[in-house]
């Protein structure tokens, strides 16, 4: 009852808006669809891919001068939600398979293109002498993690749980880069991020390795978005990421090859 009332009210309001818009600006028709203007594809990518994808984006535009690449970097869980809400994405690169699966019906077939490992991030010089995961349970240490819905947060929790380490984080950040920020600003003493984030944030931070047997590898899948109206350009970007050239860039930023399947 209430819902149908709201619906009709909304419909009325939309009609009023459209009518007003039609009456208001006949002059604005004909807009911006110049034929020579370059295509733009929007790549929604996990925050941890920021540096590497910016480089691949440059290479892509160099190879396809008529296609411009715009990135939306955020936590994969936020990007998946945005795609579910019909955000105009052409490509989605997630830091885990869980969030890729969340949009399974909305994307083409996902392909793994990289993997990553966790590392403890501390201030330059490691003033608190953090040696491993078990040190993070020290209550005097301000530890920041990514929120449990963020892939990095989920992996970090898996790693801590496997070692039976109980951490009381002081903040659960919305994406992995925010964890790096809090440590590089000195607000937090330690955090768990990807190896690649420590590489990218070098200068103010350094990494403490997590041994392979305690680490949780992150797998990055990429897919084109079905609703995209630039399928070929989107596929070209995916191909670029998976090409030798793209893999070389990812490697230079510290990413590992995707798990052999």
């Amino acid at each position, binding site marked *: 009852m*209430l*819902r149908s009332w*709201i*619906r009709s*009210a*909304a419909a009325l*309001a*939309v009609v*009023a*808006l459209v009518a*007003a*818009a039609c*009456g*208001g600006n006949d002059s604005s028709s004909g807009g911006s669809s110049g034929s020579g203007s370059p295509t733009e594809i929007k790549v929604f990518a996990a925050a941890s891919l920021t540096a590497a994808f910016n480089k691949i984006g440059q290479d892509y535009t160099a190879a396809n001068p008529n296609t411009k690449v715009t990135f939306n970097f955020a*936590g994969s*869980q*936020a990007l*998946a*939600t945005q795609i579910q809400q019909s955000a105009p994405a052409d490509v989605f690169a997630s830091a885990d398979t869980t969030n890729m699966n969340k949009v399974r019906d909305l994307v083409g077939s996902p392909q793994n293109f990289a993997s990553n490992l966790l590392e403890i991030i501390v201030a330059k010089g490691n003033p608190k002498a953090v040696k491993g995961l078990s040190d993070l349970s020290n209550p005097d240490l*301000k530890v*920041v993690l990514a*929120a449990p*819905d963020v892939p990095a947060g989920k992996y970090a929790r898996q790693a801590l749980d496997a070692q039976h380490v109980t951490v009381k*984080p*002081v*903040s*659960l*950040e*919305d994406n992995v880069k925010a964890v790096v920020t*809090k440590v590089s*600003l*000195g*607000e*937090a003493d330690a955090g768990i991020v990807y190896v690649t984030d420590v590489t990218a944030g070098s200068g103010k931070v350094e990494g403490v390795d997590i041994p392979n047997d305690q680490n949780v590898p992150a797998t990055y899948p990429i897919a084109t978005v079905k609703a995209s109206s630039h399928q070929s350009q989107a596929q070209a970007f995916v191909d670029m990421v998976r090409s030798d050239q793209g893999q070389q860039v990812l490697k230079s930023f510290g990413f590992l090859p995707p798990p052999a399947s």
Partner: protein
Amino acid sequence: MTVTARRPRRRAATASARAGGPILLVVPALLAVGFLAIPLLGLLEQASWRNLLHELAQPQVLVALRLSLVCSLGAVAISLLIGVPLAFLLARVEFPGRNLVRALTTLPMVLPPVVGGVALLLAFGRRGLAGQWLDRAFGITLPFTTAGAILAEAFVAMPFLVITTEAGLRAMDRRYEDAAATLGAGRWTTFRRVTLPLIAPSLGAGAALCWARALGEFGATITFAGNLPGTTQTMPLAVYLALENDLQAAIALSLVLLVVSLAVLIAMRDRWFPTA
């Protein structure tokens, strides 16, 4: 007809001009109303009313709600404690740089809250200008604490109280104070028995505005205080994060904030829309 129509025609022309004016206004005004109202309708339309109570009874929702109340009321308390004296000085005392101080006080109203959060971090963070001193001298660190969240909210919300109170003080008829003084009332008695009751409506409105702004604070809070349920994750932060995995919880939280905003608006209607 054509001969005698001179006078009526002129009258008709003015009438159509009168009617034409409103149409020029009505079209953009309708756009404005639609633009402002449709998002709210969207929120209401998507809400699952049957599950609303269930969503609101989720422990994390209650925790965020409680924390929001604590933080926003804390921010109002700080604002009353130091903002009202500031309003008095600004309204009553001529001092060099008064306009500068007023501009500075108003700045957080127009500053993007995230910028406020960054500024707070660089000032009151552990390595910040004042923060490192706080840390060394008292072992106090504000980021990631509820106190930090209160501080962030107060930073953004206090100007609303200061500005409204100052306006009330300026609009007040000071002869009542003079009369009280003539009748032998001391400064404190005059303030308590005359000034305060006279500016009470401004003070109330300022506090309500300040509270509503503090309750809705997002940018400065998440930037400065971080996000931890029960400690710094206030309602707006919970809405933002819930949106990423649980749309219905986000809507339920949003509805609570919407209701609170409406309540403030209704409580303040006489003040803000005196003719209506």
